[in-house]
């Protein structure tokens, strides 16, 4: 048993190993790059939230009194672009993934450290180009850039924004490439595939999607730019082109993109659930292979965004069936997490609160997706607020919550400090309440017919205004709830309780080194001899029937 001693941060760790701005901007250390990404995505999240505020403020009243419709179009477009491409897609992989993937497999760094740094620079340059487009006047096509509006009729900065997104896509590709090669070739001795933490499995699956899907959006945006600048005619019916071709190309990436957003979150949740219930994950292999199944099936369902876009009904039926199929591995994960919680030793620390929130909210989001996967109901619900609510339940209620949970969970590892637990739990609750108040009215609004991307609605529909007011109130609460961690996490960097190597007392490999870790992660290369989430050592496991049961045994 370890003796209690006042923890002090290790004298030399990755944060103080080198000093000066150059040592950060030219670093090859995956942990420093993760911190650089943390700064970047926090910045973009903040900008994206400002646009969200503008949207919710406008919708408080039925009239279009805050902004003109053309401005409103820019608000929701830019909210979507920033949140999707510059926050959600990089969020967990680029911060937590970059930090933890090498550590969880016992490696000293990712396979290609300089490419890792390059990916951050590409992200920043892409973001800068996009911000420039916003400041120059913005883009109003919707984050989906549908043609012919984006290629022919819009008077906004479509090409520049497209270039910004095109550039940042390479950041995604390089991150995914790095993860795949690292996981294949750099696992520590004894770290077999089935001993990998589920965080790694989900990041592996995410990386597969990143490398296969992102190039397609790249070429799609390039085609839009060519069409717009040089009037090539590929999407122009007058020239023999087809506008629906754009939708196919766009959604071929953008549907898998949502799995890029959610798979890492599921990986985080697996870690949180297992570790904060002090129990091995139930059905490890099922969860691991579900990640792969989601990655594969996710590429086969893009047509469910096009049920009302003149796609053939027969194609629609196939896409509908496949969309139901892709829900199955997600459901398998939810069942396995629930089974993990059953009869376990749950501690309601902040990360666990976020994980539990994820399970509930992701389930709601996923199940509402089934209404959209069914052809008949989708016809009614397409382009309404039901869709908006559906994807926000998954992206905010799911990914954002998992991201915050992971950030809190690994905060001591990343910073060497504990966050204040009371404030953590408090803000988790505020965020949960605020989130639900924001988006649950939107399901009702959508069902009742409120279209998305409209800045006005009929003044005589009082019930609509009531729902919108509730939603905006919720958004304000959510906004406050999200500001609180910003404050106390920053506070903790200087005044937080100093964390020991393994503050949560967990078996994971990342906890077997100091907090914060040294630059090379492990003083000596670890040799792995046990499964992931091994809370009960093998000699205490009893074989009951055909299954291993973890049960303390009298020795």
């Amino acid at each position, binding site marked *: 048993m370890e003796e209690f001693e006042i923890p002090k941060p290790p004298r030399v760790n990755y944060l103080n190993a080198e000093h000066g701005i150059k040592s950060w901007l030219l670093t090859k250390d995956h942990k420093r790059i993760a911190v650089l990404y943390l700064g970047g995505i926090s910045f973009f999240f903040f900008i994206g939230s400002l646009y969200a505020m503008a949207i919710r403020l406008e919708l408080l009243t039925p009239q279009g009194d805050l902004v003109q419709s053309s401005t409103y179009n820019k608000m929701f477009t830019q909210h979507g672009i920033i949140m999707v491409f510059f926050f959600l897609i990089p969020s967990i992989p680029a911060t937590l993934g970059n930090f933890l993937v090498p550590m969880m497999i016992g490696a000293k*760094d*990712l396979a290609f450290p300089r490419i890792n740094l390059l990916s951050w620079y590409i992200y920043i340059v892409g973001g800068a180009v996009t911000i420039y487009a916003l400041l120059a006047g913005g883009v109003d096509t919707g984050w989906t850039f549908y043609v012919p509006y984006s290629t022919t009729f819009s008077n906004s900065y479509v090409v520049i924004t497209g270039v910004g997104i095109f550039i940042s896509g390479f950041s995604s590709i390089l991150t995914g490439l*790095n993860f795949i090669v690292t996981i294949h070739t750099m696992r520590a001795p004894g770290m077999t595939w089935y001993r990998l933490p589920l965080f790694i499995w989900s990041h592996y699956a995410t990386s597969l999607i990143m490398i296969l899907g992102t*190039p*397609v959006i790249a070429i799609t945006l390039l085609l839009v730019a060519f069409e717009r600048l040089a*009037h090539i*005619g590929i999407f122009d019916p007058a020239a*023999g082109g087809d506008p629906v071709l754009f939708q196919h*190309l766009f959604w071929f990436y953008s549907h898998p993109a949502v799995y890029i957003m959610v798979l890492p979150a599921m990986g985080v949740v697996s870690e949180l659930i297992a570790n904060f219930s002090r129990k091995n994950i139930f059905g490890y292999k099922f969860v691991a292979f579900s990640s792969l199944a989601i990655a594969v099936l996710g590429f086969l369902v893009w047509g469910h965004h096009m049920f009302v876009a003149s796609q053939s009904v027969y194609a629609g039926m196939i896409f509908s069936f496949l969309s139901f199929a892709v829900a199955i591995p997600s459901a398998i994960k939810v069942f396995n997490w629930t089974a993990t919680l059953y009869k376990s030793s749950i501690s309601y620390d902040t990360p666990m609160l976020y994980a539990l929130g994820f399970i509930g909210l992701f389930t709601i989001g996923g199940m509402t997706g089934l209404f959209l996967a069914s052809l008949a109901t989708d016809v009614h619900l397409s382009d309404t607020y039901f869709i908006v609510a559906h994807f926000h339940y998954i992206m905010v209620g799911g990914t954002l919550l998992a991201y915050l949970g992971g950030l809190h969970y690994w905060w001591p590892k990343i910073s060497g400090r504990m966050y204040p637990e009371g404030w953590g739990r408090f803000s988790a609750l505020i965020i949960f309440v605020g989130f639900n108040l924001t988006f649950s009215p939107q399901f009702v609004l959508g069902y009742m017919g409120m279209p998305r991307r409209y800045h006005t609605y009929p003044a005589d529909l009082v019930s609509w205004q009531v729902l919108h007011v509730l939603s905006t109130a919720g958004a304000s609460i959510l906004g406050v709830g999200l500001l609180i961690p910003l404050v106390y996490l920053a506070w903790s960097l200087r005044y937080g309780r100093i964390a020991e190597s393994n503050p949560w007392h967990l078996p994971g490999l990342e906890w077997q080194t100091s907090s914060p870790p040294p630059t090379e992660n492990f003083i000596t290369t670890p040799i792995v001899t046990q499964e992931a989430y091994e809370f009960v050592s093998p000699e205490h496991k009893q074989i009951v029937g055909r299954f291993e049961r973890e049960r303390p045994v009298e020795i």
Partner: protein
Amino acid sequence: MPEGLATTHDAATHSALQHHFENMEQQREAGTLGMWVFLVTEIMFFGGMFLAYTLYRYKYPEAFATASNHLDIRLGAVNTVVLIFSSFTMAMAVFYTQLGKRRNSIVCLVMTIVLGLTFLGIKAVEYRDKYVDNLIPGQLIPGHPFHPEVAKPGEEANQHKLHLVPGATVRNVELFFWIYFAMTGMHALHMIIGVGLLTVMTILAVRGRFGPEYHSPIEISGLYWHFVDIVWIFLFPLLYLLGRHLEGHMG
């Protein structure tokens, strides 16, 4: 200068071993896998354009046949042979590096570069011909819109005029040329990058960096070069060899 590379490094820690790898073998494996994964992304990138090509060829077969006939099959065929031969010299460069035959490997690398530049030169000639015939699509070149001369039916074969296959429209022919320029242009861009990459490799090889115990950068560059070659092998028949048997072909 004796053949082969006299290694001055201790076999235990090669100077090219990066700090985060355990040994050269792991580094080589990671680098190679990394290039393969990157090539997969390139396939997906080109794939979008192949999709567009497939769709529009299916919709407008006559226009595609017309335009394809108009391309200079001799230049295209020469380019194909040039690239295939360059893949051979590339493979030989890898082979010689593995054997430590430094001078041979440098010769092969330089030949690959020269062949690549030849390809690009011939491509430039082809592009210039299209420019002269006003076949650059859309308004890619401001002031020089797509405006080819169309041969009258029954007129003698003229390599500067479009001989429309019955059913083809000039607008759809423009669509072909847009796809032609997008795909060959993207391909040429990748070739330019490849030539740059090989130049760097040649310089390093001259400096004696590579040998039997460290040749993975040459191998990895070879993978990239072969990929660029394979893309052309798909592009050539799809763009140049359509409908050669149909009416209007130039003989």
